């Protein structure tokens, strides 16, 4: 499943559903709202583009690391400390491909998928700066 949604994710069910007969490893990445002196976090996405780019990333990772199954669910809306932001479930025959495929997906999301976070504090809020700050060039998913 590739989705951007407000609802939380049943990670246990995703793991169960990711198993294939030749699955030997499942890696779960669960990005969580950290307490950096914040009250909540607001997440916003350019949804139709973000979903399309997540689908591209899943397809690329599947081909590159011979993955058997990929789920990427990114949440938007208001989330509290401790809540799930992003869940990636990767199924592969061996741990190496599973770990590397999961890492490829999270780094690709951080590099280019149009999603933003605003940390809310008692005094207001602050937008989380992107790690890839250069606007020149057409990006990896042009």
């Amino acid at each position: 499943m590739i989705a951007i949604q407000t609802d939380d994710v049943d990670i246990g069910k995703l793991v169960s559903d990711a198993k294939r007969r030749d699955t030997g490893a499942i890696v779960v990445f669960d990005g969580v709202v950290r307490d950096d002196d914040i009250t909540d976090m607001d997440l916003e996405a350019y949804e139709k583009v973000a979903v399309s780019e997540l689908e591209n990333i899943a397809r690329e990772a599947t081909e590159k690391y011979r993955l058997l199954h990929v789920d990427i669910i990114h949440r938007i809306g208001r989330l509290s400390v401790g809540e799930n932001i992003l869940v990636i479930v990767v199924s592969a025959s061996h741990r190496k491909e599973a770990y590397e495929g999961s890492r490829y997906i999270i780094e690709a999301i951080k590099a280019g998928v149009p999603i933003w976070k605003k940390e809310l504090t008692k005094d207001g809020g602050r937008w989380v700066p992107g790690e890839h700050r250069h606007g020149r060039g057409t990006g990896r998913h042009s």
Partner: protein
Amino acid sequence: MWYKKREEKEEKMSVTIRFFAQFGELLGTDISAEPTSGGALADLIKEVASKNKEGYDAIFDKNGAFREFVIIMRNGKRLDTAHAENARVADGDEIAVFPPVAGG
């Protein structure tokens, strides 16, 4: 007659501009514009952004050039900001303007 028809079509040109994150807070998130045909994409964004000085200054530098970190998409495809200076908008375009992404 052909010329007149073309003129009528150009008058109906409709473009959507979408600002995200801090740009959206300052300028609004979903703006409909009816630019004249043949206009530069950068000029359209400048015109829309000029309604809020803080928003304009977040996107453009003092020389009116896109700030280096600004990202532009046209119809879901990234457009180099250097090319956006001269790119022409077309009827039905959806232009997105946003700061560096921070998902994950």
